[in-house]
């Protein structure tokens, strides 16, 4: 993944103002910086949700300034919201998001198992889950999607100690299998020990 002098604009405001960052496959990179620095915008740009106004952005071999939609099927994005359907069960949600990339039932079950959801929570509606359990469900959906690029915004938020350990193990496993992982977090101690590299984001630039 290679971003060079990227500018992105939202509502007339440059949320990224010349960001340059290179990340190799298998790396786990922690993005740190104050609120409004551009961490979330950087993740959304890499997911193909923000247009490249200027500069060049190449993600998983896709040039985002030419086509920002074809990269999306290879991306797993966990933002501030979880992207879950509250009236569906945990299993329904993981099955649905897994099915968008053709995941088998075994892969769906393995994803739920990985995040500790396979036993008593599988058939519980998301609306009845705690915030941490919802976060785990969202992570299980990402695991089922077998993404090549993981983009996580404050992924540890709301998780208990076990959930955090499971998340870290999952991310290390994904990176070991060749996925690229970008984590934006304010929990520097936790996310820092997970990351292979830390970069500072400030004023829409990467330092």
């Amino acid at each position, binding site marked *: 993944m290679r971003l060079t002098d990227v500018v992105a604009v939202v509502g007339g405001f440059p949320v990224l103002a010349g960001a340059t960052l290179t990340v190799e496959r298998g790396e786990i990179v922690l993005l740190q910086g104050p609120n409004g620095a551009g961490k979330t915008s950087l993740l959304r740009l890499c*997911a193909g*949700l923000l247009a490249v106004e200027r500069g060049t952005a190449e993600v998983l071999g896709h040039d985002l300034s030419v086509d920002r939609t074809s990269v*999306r099927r290879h991306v797993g*994005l966990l933002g501030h919201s979880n*992207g879950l359907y509250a*009236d*569906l069960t945990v299993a*329904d949600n993981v099955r649905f*998001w897994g099915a*968008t990339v053709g995941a088998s039932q075994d892969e769906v079950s393995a994803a739920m198992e990985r995040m500790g959801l396979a036993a008593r929570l599988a058939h519980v509606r998301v609306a009845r889950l705690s915030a941490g359990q919802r976060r785990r469900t969202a992570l299980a959906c990402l695991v089922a999607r077998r993404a090549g690029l993981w983009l996580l915004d404050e992924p540890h938020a709301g998780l208990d100690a076990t959930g955090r350990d499971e998340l870290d193990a999952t991310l290390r496993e994904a990176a070991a299998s060749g996925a690229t992982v970008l984590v934006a977090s304010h929990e520097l101690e936790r996310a820092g020990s997970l990351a292979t590299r830390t970069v500072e984001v400030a004023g829409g630039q990467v330092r």
Partner: protein
Amino acid sequence: MSTWQIARLVAAKDLRVEWRSRVVTNQVLPFAALVMVMFAFALDNDQALTRVAPGLVWLAAMFSLLVLVQRAFAVETADGALDALKVAGVRSSGIFLGKALALAAQLAVLEAVLLVAAILLYRTEVPAGGVGVLLATYVAATAGLAFVGTLYGGLAAGARGRETLLPLLLLPVVAPVLIGATRATEAALGTNDAMPSEGWPWFGLLALFAAVFGAGGALAFGSLIDD
């Protein structure tokens, strides 16, 4: 995944959401039935009710459509699922067709209930010769409403004040369906001495409307829901 595979996946998910939440059966159906009863109270004249019954059925269907479309996109925006769908990289035409299919299924049930309510409340009769045009109208109007509802629901989904914006955008656009479906249903029921054969040109208008919004929606939906 192909467009049809995505459409089936999204439609099954939307119908499962409705089945689990029972919003259609517990809220939208009683709302539609109430509208029919209120019309009866307001007009309070059997002859007038029989004469305007086709229009009242489709007007109640339009009001219910607004509730169904709001609901169909509220489940997508409540926890950022629409964003997740965009990132999932699935074909937007598949999302459009899937959501339209699920909406059409719910509308079909609703309209059937409204028609039965009209027959019971307004003492309307369906002559044997009008069954064909009535069924064709029912299918074409349902498809048209589902396509246009999904298209405008997607357009309003990301907007501020979408609850009030949707009726403002949607009602003028569905006016041809209201007119066409009402005239075709009048012909099917023989209201005001109309003949069933007079309904087919109106069915043609409804079919054309459904085809235009079905094709246009499948093409434009991606740009509408994207940032």
